[in-house]
């Protein structure tokens, strides 16, 4: 790289910064904007990410990696059109050619945008600080990862089991600015520089004959909060306890869902938490009925839809729930003691339908309330039921009831008269989280769960933390047995 051709630090040595700093991003944005011809607005979105990865299977590391990449998206609004291109090089010639490409796109685009005169000034957004970054995660070296992996594998290997798992430390940065506002104050559709770290650790322990499988995992911004050794112990214990499962009749059972299982089931809810669009307002699980007089659909907002012991909320200041900041982000409660209290909406809806500012994002990160009953206590008070580790391959079947189907995985046990008696073959379930969350018998202490963002290029929501309790739920519907271990 020639001097002056962008951040040399990214590539010069192994100890160089693995992601772009704010200063580097600002400099790149300025260079891009400097290449623009023909006036108009230039938007630059710069994403950089680094992954330190370690994967193992059959008790041996199969691959350890250091990977990084950049994505630059340049958008030019010229005259009456807008064009954009994406690329991943930071040198002058590449950026300039990308700008030319975006300008060509602007010429060819169909949008005839013409801001009228006499418009109010753009509002300036304030972004709260959220807990996205952990030095502990960023500082983990390949050596440390290797040591950790060996420590996680050793107990399983010592007991003749096969451990497979994955460790990943990630750092990323994102900025999206406009030539019209390179610095504070930003407009609500800019993204001021943010950087984050994500750590994930998960493992599956199986016996050599494939008759049992146990899993444990955790993810979050801070590696310091993830106790890999405890996870490995749990996965091994579950593996041993799940060997030689027996077949059970499908049917409705009382289930004790570990926090991971609850979180897996909650994905059906989390994906449905938007206000229906005015033109399609009967859609989704939260539409109530049409109101002919007012020409709109009433919603279930304000109605009790879940057990009153369930409160689901998010506080941007919570150090355990750091997500990418949105303008004017506030604490939000989605379900307040079972009452549906908020549904996401965009800024246009906010201003037009509600006369408020700003919009409200969906359940990107959340905390779910619980109780103080331990899982052991739940087991002890169950006459007949099943203990579920987690669910897998969940698919939504019906958008109004959120009925879904999926599979239990990595540990399912029968409870009889307050004790775990047998390992059980996995089931397919057909159930709705809305039904389950209305059939709660007991709640436990909420804990963080495994909910990592898989794709490093996905910067819209680079962290998706959740804190979820274990639940005992009655009448959970299992519809068929599966052979998979």
């Amino acid at each position, binding site marked *: 790289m020639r001097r002056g051709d962008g951040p040399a630090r990214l590539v010069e040595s192994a100890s160089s910064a693995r992601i772009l700093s704010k200063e580097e991003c600002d400099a790149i944005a300025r260079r891009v904007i400097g290449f623009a011809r023909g006036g108009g607005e230039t938007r630059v979105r710069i994403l950089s990410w680094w992954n330190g990865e370690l994967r193992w299977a059959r008790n041996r590391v199969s691959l350890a990696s250091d990977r990084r990449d950049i994505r630059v998206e340049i958008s030019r609004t010229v005259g009456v059109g807008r064009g954009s291109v994406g690329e991943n090089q930071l040198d002058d010639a590449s950026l300039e050619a990308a700008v030319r490409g975006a300008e060509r796109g602007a010429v060819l685009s169909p949008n005839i945008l013409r801001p009228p005169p006499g418009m109010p000034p753009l509002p300036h957004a304030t972004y709260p600080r959220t807990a996205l970054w952990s030095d502990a995660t960023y500082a983990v070296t390949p050596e440390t990862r290797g040591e950790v992996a060996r420590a996680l594998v050793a107990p399983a290997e010592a007991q003749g089991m096969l451990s*497979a798992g994955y460790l990943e430390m990630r750092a990323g940065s994102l900025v999206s600015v406009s030539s019209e506002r390179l610095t504070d104050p930003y407009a609500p559709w800019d993204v001021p520089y943010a950087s984050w770290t994500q750590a994930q650790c998960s493992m599956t322990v199986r016996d050599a004959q494939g008759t049992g499988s146990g899993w444990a995992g955790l993810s979050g911004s801070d590696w310091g909060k993830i106790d890999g050794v405890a996870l490995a112990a749990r996965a091994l214990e579950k593996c041993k306890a799940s060997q030689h499962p027996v077949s059970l009749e499908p049917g409705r059972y009382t289930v004790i869902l570990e926090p991971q299982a609850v979180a897996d089931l909650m994905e059906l809810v989390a994906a449905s938490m938007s206000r229906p669009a005015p033109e399609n307002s009967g859609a989704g699980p939260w539409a109530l009925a049409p109101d002919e007089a007012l020409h709109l659909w009433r919603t279930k907002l304000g109605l009790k839809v879940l057990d009153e012991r369930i409160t689901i909320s998010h506080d941007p200041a919570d150090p355990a729930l750091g997500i990418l900041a949105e303008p004017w982000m506030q604490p939000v409660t989605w379900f307040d003691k079972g009452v549906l209290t908020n549904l996401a909406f965009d800024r246009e809806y906010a201003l037009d339908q509600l006369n408020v500012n700003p919009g409200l994002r969906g359940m990107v990160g959340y905390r779910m309330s619980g109780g103080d009953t331990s899982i052991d206590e739940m087991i002890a008070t169950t006459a007949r039921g099943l203990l579920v580790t987690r669910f897998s391959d969940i698919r939504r079947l019906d958008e109004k009831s959120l*009925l879904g189907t999926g599979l239990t995985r990595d540990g399912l046990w029968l409870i009889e008269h307050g004790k775990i008696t047998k390992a059980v073959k996995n089931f397919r379930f057909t159930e709705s989280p809305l039904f389950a969350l209305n059939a709660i018998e007991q709640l436990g202490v909420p804990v963080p769960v495994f909910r990592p963002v898989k794709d490093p290029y996905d910067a819209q929501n680079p962290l998706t933390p959740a804190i979820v309790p274990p639940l005992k739920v009655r009448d959970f519907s299992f519809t068929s047995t599966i052979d*998979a271990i």
Partner: protein
Amino acid sequence: MNLTRRNLLKAGALAAAAAAIPRPLLAQLGRTPEPLPPIDDPRLKALASSALETARAAGAVYADVRLTHSRLRTFWPVYTADDESMEVGVRALMDGYWGFASGPVWSPDEMARLGREAVHQAKVNALGKRRVVELAAVPVVASGNWVMPVAIDPFEISPFEVQDFLTSLDLYCGRIPDSGLQQNFAFAAVQEKAFASTEGSYCTQRFYRTEGSLIVRLQLTKERAGNFAVEGLSPAGMGWELYTAERIPRLREHSLREEIRRGIEELREELLLPVKPVDVGRYDAVLDAPTVASLVDKTLGRATELDRALGFEANAGGTSYLTDPFGMLGSYQAGAPAFTLTAERSEPGAVATVKWDDEGVAPDSFTLVKDGVLTDFQTTRESAGWMKNSYAKAGRPVRSHGCAGAPSAVEAPLQQAPNLTLVPGREAHDFDALVSGTARGIAIKGAGIDMDFQHSSGLGMGRVFEIKNGKRVAAIDSAGFLFRATELWKALHATGGEASLRRYGMMTEKGEPAERCYHSVTAAPVVVKDLTLIDPQRKA
């Protein structure tokens, strides 16, 4: 603009260049950055070699490097969006452990850094327990170059032509009463890849992938409405001819326009059928080609990945129901005697087709299941090594089948699915003929399949019809089917003929971190006996 003859001529000459995004990306081959050379430029070999030299100097017993230059172009009827990137990744083997390092910069300094880092990653794990890696031998490709043959390079034609074509489909669809296009866009990708290894191989290739989404909606009445995706536009190793050709063997028999018309006619007939609720039970089932392709892919297609079968995906997508790969080879009855599944990476137009895989191996054609019996697995150089004893017993050479791949050089190569083909039946039956030959049963079209994490049992949901006396007489509402992989293929009763084969491009996600790769599956419609029909929404 004045359309004078002179301007037109000048425009013609510049059209190809002008239509494309100007070459923006630079590579630093020597001291100073210069415009991106074609992938077979010899100076790139020197660049690649420098990474390998560094890796070797740092202690690697084997190392390889991939450089990729990828371009993506999305076409909508009124707009075209471009994306372009360069990546490089180095893999090193030391003391039985692999290390990998990758990034976006092609320069001598970066090659050195990556070479060192890859070895560093391997070294810190080599401190652990002993691990043995035997790479199956591969002929050295001292210097090779291959370009996937396409009739129309989608990056060289005017985006306007593409836009006009897409718009014309919209206009055509609008002529047909009650119908409209719900989705209409096309996507093209071209990737140039250079591969070099410390064994002395160096090869360069260019691959194309073109696909489209053309979803037609038919609304007869408020209640009777449905949509379908037009055949033949799933990912293909082809160029723009995927859209413009009048017919493409194994993809479609007619032009896209005609496929739209026929699809609407067929959907109209289906929407006018009486609707019945599910009568849970076991039925003889006629499955259309896309359903069969999905079933084949998600059962044996996944189960025969050797790394998966040995637990290397246990923490991600899961394992395989072929629980004892070495023991089952040559004896496990995976399906009926009429069931034969072959694999290759050479079929023209298929999307996993390459000249060399990501380890420099020229893939061969091989048979996974022959006459119902499991005969082979999908392998890379390392996993082929695991098959050493089994191959020796069967008198076969130990070689990788060439399944190594990754979406781009920034991801490490994994064993990815090759193209799969379910061998057709001998008689010239197609879907309608198979329906005609069924006295009582069900017909299933366009089902999506969910498998469990051992790929052994699954749930399918699609459009289901009741067959009576060889005719589809009713649509069955909210129906799905449950199956176990081996039972399903053992219950294979009839397979459509050669002319009814259809090829579908599939995308799979595998690995940690997750990688998305493409391959094609070719299958014919089939009849299976005793398929379990259920109402997937019925709770216990």
